[in-house]
């Protein structure tokens, strides 16, 4: 569904991504894990067309999308949910949701149906419908960001740190929602620092370190990988032969 080939990307003189390649098949949950500054968000921004790439290619549904305008990419069904707080704070919750469907030019009834679907998933957004988005709690904002993305009818949803800053109980809820979205047919690319939870729900995962993918495998397999534990779960070893 999505194929990224040998991407290099820079910020000024600093190279952020080094010949990064990955692929996502339809129906998968794939997570991209790595420490802060590994280049995960840059990679998402490159895919979405928000950040230029220096070389390499991005294929979505068999079409090259690098260099395309971000709105056209969204129109194709590739939608990024940015890190929380990237909601329109002064607007109401309902208006935020409606904006998510802006590109689809739906009529009033269709828009209503779509909002109903999102409300069914996140009942809290119905209750908060008339409030300014800026007054929501962290978890509610994250749900709003996700709901707004769903309004765009994503084929592939890219989530950037959906668990960031959330209380543990909300984190579990968030991952449960991600799984159910996937079951309903949305392919998911999940960027996370919360490696443990992300790997648990993912079919496959890629591990990034300083702009390079250093490891890949099944989610469950990587959860037990010493390299992953060392880098993200706080486990260390000094000598290779230690057991």
């Amino acid at each position, binding site marked *: 569904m999505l194929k990224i080939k040998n991407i290099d990307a820079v910020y000024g003189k600093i190279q952020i991504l080094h010949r990064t390649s990955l692929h996502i098949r339809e129906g998968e949950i794939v997570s991209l894990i790595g420490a802060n500054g590994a280049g995960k968000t840059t990679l998402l921004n490159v895919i979405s067309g928000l950040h230029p790439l220096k070389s390499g290619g991005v294929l979505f549904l068999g079409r090259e999308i690098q260099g395309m305008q971000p709105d056209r990419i969204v129109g194709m069904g590739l939608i990024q949910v940015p890190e929380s707080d990237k909601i329109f704070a002064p607007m109401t919750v309902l208006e935020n949701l409606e904006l998510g469907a802006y590109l689809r030019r739906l009529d009033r009834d269709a828009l209503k149906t779509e909002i109903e679907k999102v409300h069914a998933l996140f009942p809290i957004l119905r209750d908060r419908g008339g409030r300014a988005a800026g007054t929501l709690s962290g978890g509610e904002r994250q749900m709003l960001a996700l709901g707004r993305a769903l309004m765009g009818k994503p084929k592939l949803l890219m989530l950037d740190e959906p668990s960031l800053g959330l209380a543990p109980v909300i984190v579990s809820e968030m991952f449960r929602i991600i799984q159910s979205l996937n079951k309903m047919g949305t392919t998911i690319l999940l960027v996370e620092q919360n490696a443990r939870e992300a790997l648990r729900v993912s079919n496959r995962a890629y591990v990034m370190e300083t702009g*390079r993918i250093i490891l890949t495998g099944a989610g469950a397999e990587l959860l037990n990988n010493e*390299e992953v534990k060392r880098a993200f779960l706080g486990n260390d070893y000094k000598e290779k032969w*230690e057991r």
Partner: protein
Amino acid sequence: MAMFNPETETLNRRELLDFQNERLGILINHAYANVRYYRNKFDAAGLNPDDIKTLEDLKKIPFTTREDLVSNYPYGMFAVPLRDVVRLQFSLGHYGNPIVIGYTREDLKIWRELVARIMVGVGITEHDIIQVAFNYGLFMGAFRFNQGAELIGAAVVPASVAPADVQIRIMRDFRSTVLVSTPSFALHIIETMRARGKTKELSLKIGLFGAEPWPESARGIIEEGLGIKAYDIYGVTELIEPGVSGECTEKAGLHIFEDHFFPEIIDPITGRSLKEGEEGELVLTSLTTSAYPLIRYRTHDRTALCTKPCACGRTLVRMNRIFKRTDRMISVRGINVFPEMITEVLSGIEGIGPEYSLEIKQKAGMNDQLIIRVSPPPELMQAAEDMATLHGKVQSALRKALGLRVQVDI
């Protein structure tokens, strides 16, 4: 043709190349970050891992050889901490030069699938009873047939080193439908059956044979003698063996599992890459191996590649069957012998020199017996019993070192 993993085995070649490319990037990062040997090698060649962007760029990297593995024994080539390793496998038959290969749980899972792919590709199903007559002690790969078979639900009879008449009785009583062994052992079974005048009482249908070169003429003899279809399988001890490639029912070359191994053919003398169809040495890069990644590993096996579509439906590249080596290794009934090992053994025995001449007796075009001739001690007047003692000493020393009974002439 039935396939174990049709999606992968029939992937169009452009998709396959993209996949290989993705894995190559990860492999290079993984090996460079975790294996000092590779880091030194890159640095010495003035290579930055970021320079390796495509499979074509791979050619910039120097080869990895058996000697590299030996000099980094035991854990120098490991790319993961030992905690991630669930199996340590050593290869026998390399006298004095041991290597140890580690596998993570994921590595073993891949290996198991590749053996299952070979089995399904030649028509083995969950209804089959697979008799494995490889030496489980000498050939560690024998266990992989158990796991591959279990994955597809077939039954395994690990008959191992049981003598031919016992093997035949098991085959008859258990109604084994598949024989897995060296081709020379299959021949031995046929001879044993003929000697007893019983050739028509088995249920065998399919044979998987490997671990030594066997010509097409031997295939004919085995297929006729056992009433089976006989297929060639291939592996590399330092990667996985069996499981790198295997024939399909078309018998038109062995399909290399390119989602895990990237093959190249090189001129063994100059190291230059050769084109498709040209015969040379097979060089393999492991694309998915975690514990013991090998980049451009020289196998010393001579073959040629063909990417034309195969009638079986697999899109995976095919390699020609292997009959020749680019080094001096000799395979005798599935046991690998390096002439250097013989020299080493002989020079350790008092009374004879390290010089010898080697004769190989063949049966059905396959190596059957080694005859090693050594010169007698210079003192011409040797007592007969001293000669007999010396002869026994040489014979048992060689047997111990080579894992093979050889004929010694003094």
